[in-house]
């Protein structure tokens, strides 16, 4: 076995074995949340970090996934069958995303970012007012299918791995290069014959699908949603951006690193600061943007590149 395979295999086995080693529900809960935020971060990163289309309202897709599952349960599906919501919720998010993308991607600038924000607010109002379908402000409650956290751990792990592999696959394909080209210079990409509107839309579709799946998982896991929780701008949309910025936008591992830091910090803040703990996240956003705009992974990458450049002396006469 080579050194690199070992380097990959060891953490992988460790991650798979965690539920066998510990039954501590609190620890497992934290890990489940981390993995869910990995999915959310990856999704946002594909669109924002790789394609350069910043969205301020990804809670829209999260909420659609969650509510699709919730409504399926309400319509009489057993909680076990509610897992079909993972797929249906993701697809529903994609459908809505395709409409908003079709409208907004033809315009540049902040239109898309804020249209999605507006969309998530409209959806929140719909969820709040369409009582017969969504129970309004009461929210939707059901008994989760499994009592053991281990089951949820494996399910969300599978989603996170699928999301990671899918996005890595996309970024390794021609599509990925189109996305990067659009992010770097849209005019240039267009002049090379890339249909930028279409490829921005593709990026959004993948991104919204996985966000919807994560929303549906949230419903299945928590067993309760209300409009204020799943369509929250502060707690979902902005935190998705924070997770990506913390880890490093436009990097493969950034969202995962960001999710771990985010969940750790939010637990610490939640325990020690009773209310207004979002102040710290706000300060964090400001600090990252001013001093570490490329996040943890991006900053380490820069630092290593600089060391490498120092270690290899410039060729003579260069």
């Amino acid at each position, binding site marked *: 076995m080579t050194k690199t395979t070992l380097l990959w295999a060891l953490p992988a086995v460790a991650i798979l074995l965690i539920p066998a080693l510990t039954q501590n529900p609190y620890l497992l809960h934290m890990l489940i949340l981390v993995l869910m935020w990995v999915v959310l971060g990856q999704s946002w990163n594909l669109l*924002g970090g790789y394609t350069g289309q910043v969205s301020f309202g990804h809670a829209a897709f999260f909420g659609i996934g969650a509510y699709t599952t919730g409504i399926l349960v309400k319509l009489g599906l057993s909680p076990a069958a509610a897992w079909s919501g993972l797929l249906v919720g993701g697809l529903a998010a994609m459908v809505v995303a395709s409409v908003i993308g079709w409208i907004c991607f033809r315009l540049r600038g902040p239109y898309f970012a804020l249209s999605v*924000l*507006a969309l998530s607010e409209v959806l929140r*109002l719909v969820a709040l007012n369409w009582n017969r379908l969504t129970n309004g402000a009461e929210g939707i409650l059901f008994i989760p299918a499994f009592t053991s956290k281990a089951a949820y751990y494996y399910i969300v792990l599978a989603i996170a791995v699928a999301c990671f592999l899918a996005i890595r696959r996309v970024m390794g394909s021609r599509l990925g290069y189109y996305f990067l080209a659009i992010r770097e210079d849209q005019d240039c990409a267009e002049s090379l014959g890339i249909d930028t509107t279409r490829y921005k839309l593709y990026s959004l579709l993948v991104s919204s699908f996985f966000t919807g799946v994560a929303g549906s998982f949230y419903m299945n896991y928590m067993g309760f949603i209300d409009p204020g929780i799943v369509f929250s701008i502060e707690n979902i949309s902005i935190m998705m951006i924070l997770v990506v910025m913390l880890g490093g936008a436009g990097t493969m591992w950034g969202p995962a690193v960001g999710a771990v830091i985010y969940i750790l910090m939010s637990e610490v803040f939640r325990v020690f600061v009773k209310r207004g703990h979002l102040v710290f996240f706000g300060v964090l956003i400001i600090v990252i943007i*001013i001093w570490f*705009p490329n996040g943890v992974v991006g900053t380490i990458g820069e630092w290593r590149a600089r060391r490498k450049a120092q270690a290899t002396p410039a060729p003579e006469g260069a």
Partner: protein
Amino acid sequence: MSGQVAGQLELLLQTIISGVLLGGLYSLIGLGMSLIMGVMKIINLAHGELMMVAMYVTFWCFTLAGLDPYLSVLIAFPLLFLLGVAVQKFLIAPVMEVESILPENQVLLTVGIGLVLSNLALLAFSADYRSVPVSYASKAIYWDLSLGGQTLSLSFSVPMMVAFGIALVLGASLFLFLGRTDLGRMIRATAQDKRAAALMGINTKRITYVTFGLGSALVGAAGSLLVPVYYVFPQIGGPFTLKAFIITVLGGMGNIPGAVLGGVVLGLAESLGSVYVSLGYKDAIGFVIFVLVLIFLPKGILGKGSA
């Protein structure tokens, strides 16, 4: 005219009156956003939170010193101007020079600023809804209109009319300031072409400070005017940021008369919508108009914005 038709007409006219009055306040909120948008090409997502700060200033001025909310415009306006200048100088301007992968870094920064402001307010003042008990809060002037043998009784809310009047005065002063003074001309030149303005000897950096300060001061004044007719609470900013953006898009980005018109259109639409569509969906109506404008009139209703 039958009594039923008269009743319907009365409701319609009354709704239009409240909509236009509300629109005056919205215009003031939109003006600040549009000015910042025009000069710096960024969306200020802390706009509503700046208004919230002004509302708390007004609230405490009244509670501690008994100062009338309309008089505290004179305090909130300069205070928010200074806050805006500080935010631009120490936070947003440095980020203009930072290289990063995300293209909308400054906008993200304003998200962080908004989050800090609203949660600091939450820490300092708790989540309670507060209001200022002024004597004229529910005063109104009634106007009986005779029409076809029926009498329509219309009411004009006094605080809303005062707010509308002050908003008009501020809007007009801004228009004169931008059109007639040197500083105003410099701001417009910077909005048109930053590099060319710099080549003409304008200190564009200082212009962005003034612009952000002015935008904050305008929304601060709107906050003070809103206090007698609304509640003050830490989370009030978010929805108003969105409203400001909708107004800016309606009027065309950076278009000052457009922002005034956009504010009135939004006020009217919300007012009509809450009466004739549904109260619960009142806030959604603005978004629907917004999306329609994006599809059909991306340069705003006056067609002169910089899309």
